[in-house]
């Protein structure tokens, strides 16, 4: 495997993607929203502290138990902001899906795939280049958004206890480890779809299916069916790592140059 070839593909993908203002807007807009929303929510909750003394009534018991020595309001704030952990983990899933879903079928429709496959590049190099080109910006943007979120917390008067929780192992593992692993899974899934369909729009639509299990996690947490603890997060990470390995292996096996070049219907 030649790193130079992978770098060239990444360079090409980025040069193309970042020349498209709409794609650039998507990359910046969504993380911005996911950063601002929890900050607004925490600020409003902090301001309304006197009116929400009985607010923990709706918080699941399992979560209350996990709050330890925190006050009821802090526990409620953490419970509410925890929903945004899943959304932060979604950033590196949504952004690369749109890029990766286009990457193979897009080359096919613009007739650049054949000259590209005619070069000495291997399938592993091509897929690695395309995956990384889609995943890296999304991961970096999600980390940047999380960094801004952490830095803004004291500015809106969030208590030390809540800040410690958000800067603690569950969030760090979620954003820094599970998020990138989800990105790898979503990118590989999108690449797989992209190499099997003939229309970029279909590729994007189908690829978005990858979000369903993550949204399932979000709703399970909202419904109190699951409380994300360090142990749960570690299990999620382990599962994601296994899924990633399987998807990378399958992706390379399934990528058939001949079928992609010759089958259009």
């Amino acid at each position, binding site marked *: 495997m*030649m790193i*130079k*070839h992978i770098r*060239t593909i990444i*360079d*090409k993908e980025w*040069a*193309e993607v970042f*020349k*498209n203002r709409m794609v650039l807007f998507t990359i910046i807009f969504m993380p911005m929203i996911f950063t601002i929303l929890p900050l607004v929510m925490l600020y409003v909750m902090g301001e309304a502290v006197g009116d929400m003394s009985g607010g923990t009534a709706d918080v699941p018991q399992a979560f209350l138990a996990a709050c330890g020595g925190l006050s009821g309001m802090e526990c409620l704030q953490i419970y509410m902001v925890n929903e945004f952990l899943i959304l932060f983990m979604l950033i590196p899933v949504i952004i690369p899906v749109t890029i990766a879903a286009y990457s193979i079928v897009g*080359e096919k429709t*613009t*007739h*650049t*795939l*054949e*000259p*590209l*496959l*005619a*070069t*000495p*590049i*291997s399938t592993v190099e091509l897929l690695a280049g395309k995956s990384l080109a889609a995943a890296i910006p999304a991961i970096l943007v999600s980390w940047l958004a999380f960094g801004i979120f952490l830095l803004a917390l004291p500015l809106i008067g969030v208590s030390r206890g809540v800040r410690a929780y958000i800067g603690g192992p569950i969030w760090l593992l979620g954003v820094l480890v599970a998020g990138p692993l989800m990105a790898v899974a979503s990118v590989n899934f999108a690449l797989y779809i992209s190499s099997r369909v003939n229309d970029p729009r279909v590729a994007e639509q189908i690829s978005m299916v990858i979000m369903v299990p993550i949204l399932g996690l979000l709703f399970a947490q909202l419904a109190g069916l699951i409380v994300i603890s360090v142990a749960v997060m570690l299990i999620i990470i382990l599962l994601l790592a296994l899924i990633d390995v399987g998807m990378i292996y399958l992706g390379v096996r399934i990528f058939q*140059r*001949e079928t992609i*070049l*010759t089958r259009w219907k």
Partner: protein
Amino acid sequence: MIVTEDLTKVFKIGKKGKEEIVAVESLHLSVKEGEVFGFLGPNGAGKTTTVRMLTGLIAPTRGRASVNGLELGKENRAIRKCVGILTESPGMYERLSAEKNLSIFASLYDVEDVPGQVRKFLQMLGLWGRRQDPVGSFSKGMRQKLAIARALLHDPKVLFMDEPTSGLDPEAAKMVRDFIESLKARGRTIFICTHNLDEADRLCDRIGIIKQRLIAVDTPAALRQRLYGRKVVFHLRELNSKWVKVVSALPFVKEARAISERLVVSLENPDRDNPEIVRCLVKVGADIQFVGELRHSLEEIYLETLRDIEDER
């Protein structure tokens, strides 16, 4: 340089892949180093499939082939490294500049001096002044030039060109043809798939006519000879029907026919036999205005060959 033996490609189609389409059948071919080989055939004859097989893009169903001494199927990556391909649609990254487009491919072909090689070809093809412009703003001719540059960046031993002048205006087509001629003069092995028979006639050392299987392969002159023999036209002031019989009676004449005021004579060896016919015609009182060889166009040869194969089927 290119050798194929029984090269066959069958595509499985239909929902369960039960139906089969034979795209190329038992192709036996040999292209020498430095040769410009023209591959002619109607749409769907298997030209592009053959090029894709020979460039390692798709695998043959049966048979063997080697390109530049490298065996197809076993050394595909090495084959891709030493061949250049100009695809039928010169797909380019439209948002990127001409320079960026070429740089990407030069890197993928492991060219040592990427900026130098890119500069060389952009200058050679007259695109250096537009190097920073997005390819989306280029005309079809300019894109084709850029696609040719892309195929040549790594100095390939063999160049495959699929319809190199398709859809180009006469000026751009001439530029491309001139460039192919300059490559030919430098001894590059070129395999051209084309519908443009005039172009094939002018550029190619040998021609192969394919319709799933190879129907004929030879030099354009030999194909003419094989199909039509050599014919000489005697333009006469007026033609007497008796003179046709006199000429037909000559032992070396295969056939003589009168067409308006011209006498068309089929011969084995016009260089040897023409003086004798001239003497004979003068003797019987014919006024010969001029003598020339009747040259059938490659188009006639091509259509005749395909007609023969249809009749056989």
